[in-house]
């Protein structure tokens, strides 16, 4: 068994070194792939806060991912067409500035998570899975028929949004930005897990009655976790849209929710680096297997199956064994 810390460090090193190599070897697509992995990792870390720490199995995180994506799409679309987003009650203009877009994405997805959370947290277990799925489907079908912003066709923004002082069109610079955010989110998730809030949330997952009898409100703990989790997924959504310079209702689909969840489970639920490793491995597999055969899904399926059957607790569990009791 390898110490988890080593595996984590190795993962970070991969995120740093592979793109570096790609720049030197002039393999820009590898950078794009790594950007994709980093963004998925952010979304999955978001989900992991709800899922791993809070035990909230949300099959609706595509909502937040999509809200983030559409926040970016709509703002950039209006900036591009020089039209105002709304004129009443006050004027809102589009923008092509990433920081502003991120802020909008985070705030809007947090709001969405707040509303969905308040309604969904009345339920537990499988019912929670299904009610979050239901909200996801509502957003999905809404987006499909939202003709103003492209409906099913989605929205293209032709040029990636800007970040002060960087040329975001350069793949490696945009990657750097995403990696930076990934690290920030990681640190946040790490601190969160050890914090009083994290401890209480963790206990609320295992023994809600106990949490209640020490004077805390498990539902409120969960709600806050859900909102944090949604906000992070929203940020990832905005980045993902910027990576593709395109948003579409697919971002809201249950398959997207499922995929984000697969990253977490594949890597290891509740482990800090689980989502990161899951996203990286999944993106790599998808890319590598996709080139092998028309029927590559079969290989992907078999690999995933082997991992579940022979590893306990995802890839991290497989490599490092069960989580060490921390101090």
């Amino acid at each position, binding site marked *: 068994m390898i110490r988890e810390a080593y595996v984590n460090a190795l993962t970070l090193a991969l995120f740093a070194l592979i793109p570096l190599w790609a720049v030197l070897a002039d393999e820009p697509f590898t950078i794009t792939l790594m950007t994709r992995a980093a963004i998925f990792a952010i979304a999955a870390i978001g989900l992991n806060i709800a899922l791993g720490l809070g035990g909230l199995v949300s099959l609706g995180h595509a909502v937040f991912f999509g809200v983030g994506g559409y926040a970016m799409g709509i703002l950039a679309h209006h900036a591009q067409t020089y039209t105002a987003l709304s004129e009443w009650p006050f004027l809102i203009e589009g923008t092509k500035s990433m920081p502003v877009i991120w802020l909008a994405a985070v705030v809007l997805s947090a709001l969405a998570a707040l509303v969905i959370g308040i309604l969904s947290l009345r339920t537990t277990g499988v019912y929670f899975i299904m009610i979050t799925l239901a909200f996801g489907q509502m957003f999905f*079908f809404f987006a499909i028929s939202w003709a103003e912003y492209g*409906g*099913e066709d*989605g929205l293209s923004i032709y040029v990636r949004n800007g970040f002060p002082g960087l040329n975001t069109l350069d793949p490696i610079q945009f990657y750097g930005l995403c990696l930076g955010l990934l690290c920030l989110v990681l640190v946040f998730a790490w601190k969160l897990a050890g914090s009083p809030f994290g401890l209480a949330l963790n206990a609320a997952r295992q023994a809600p009655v106990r949490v209640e009898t020490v004077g805390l409100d498990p539902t409120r703990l969960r709600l806050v976790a859900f909102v944090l989790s949604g906000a992070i997924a929203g940020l990832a959504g905005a980045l*993902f849209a910027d990576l*593709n*310079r*395109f948003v*579409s209702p*697919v971002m809201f689909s249950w398959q997207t929710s499922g995929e984000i969840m697969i990253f977490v489970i594949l890597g290891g639920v509740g482990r800090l680096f689980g989502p990161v490793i899951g996203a990286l491995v999944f993106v790599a597999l998808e890319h590598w297997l996709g080139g092998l055969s028309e029927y590559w899904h079969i290989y992907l399926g078999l690999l995933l199956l082997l991992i579940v059957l022979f590893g306990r607790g995802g890839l991290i569990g497989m490599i490092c064994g069960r989580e060490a009791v921390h101090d």
Partner: protein
Amino acid sequence: EPVKVGMITTLSGGGAGLGIDVRDGFMLAVKQSGNEEIEVIVEDDQQKPDVAVQLSDKMVQAEKVDVLTGIIWSNLAMAVIPSVTAQGKFYLSPNAGPSQLAGKGCHPNYFNVAWQNDNLHEAAGAYANFAELKNTFILAPNYPAGQDALTGFKRFYKGELAGEIYTKLGQTDYAAEIAQIRASGADGVFFFLPGGMGISFLKQYKDSGVDLPVVGPAFSFDQGILQAVGDAALGVKNTSQWSKDIDNETNKAFVESFQAEYGRLPSLYASQGFDTANLLLSAMAKADVNDADAFRAALEEADFKSTRGNFRFGPNHHPIQDIYVREVIKEGDVYTNKIIGTALTSHADAYWSECSM
């Protein structure tokens, strides 16, 4: 140095049939040309827009392709085409033709070798007039292509509408719609329900005992799908720019060689893939792909033998072509189509005037 072509198409999942046909048609033409100067890289987009975008990035950045092609679905096309043409690459569409790209969003490097999305529906509208339908019930799924379909139909259709409904995307049960049709007093039905939706609709329609005449675009009656619909499709009129019995040498040779090569009848999509490759090969013969202006001019000439017979580009690089009416028949054990007339001759799309190219 050979011309590099990046083909992004759907090769896995439920929609794979279309992508496979486009690919096979395309590769057949390349093979027949014997031209060694062309290299095709094929990738599977899984029918997901974000994957398509990734792949287009890969094609442009890593593979450094000169020409892209292959996308089946409008929403994927909208995600990919504007950005690759903006990067100076050529894109030849073998299937999707969203209206934005024909009108305001047209681009000198974008060529559509299939149709503008509305074309076949417009032809269906024209045919409905010809068949003297006076009170048609029309339906399509509720998404942009579905809305375009009904708009396209109405653009040419002159009669009344007995009803106009949008169904859910991916819907599989049409009992309620069929009941509405029955009660509406319609004298005919137009529908655009691609893929499995169309199969379900037709089977259920047949089983319901409503026997009003049905028209639709070719998509629900194409070679790949017809066998699954079976008897329910017999006699249905559908509009298409291609049919396997179009009478010209190129087409005959294509149908024969495709069958010989792959052991199945070619579909509409296969013909489109085949034509796309031939268009590209014709331009390669005339100009160097690195000389964009010359190459573009060569493409514009469309100097190739199309399986459809007459084929030329309008000012917005979309086809001007005849659109036929076909009827579904049974030849031995195989369901297929037979041309029964021409719905529209030298038809161009409705958006070219908005294109400022």
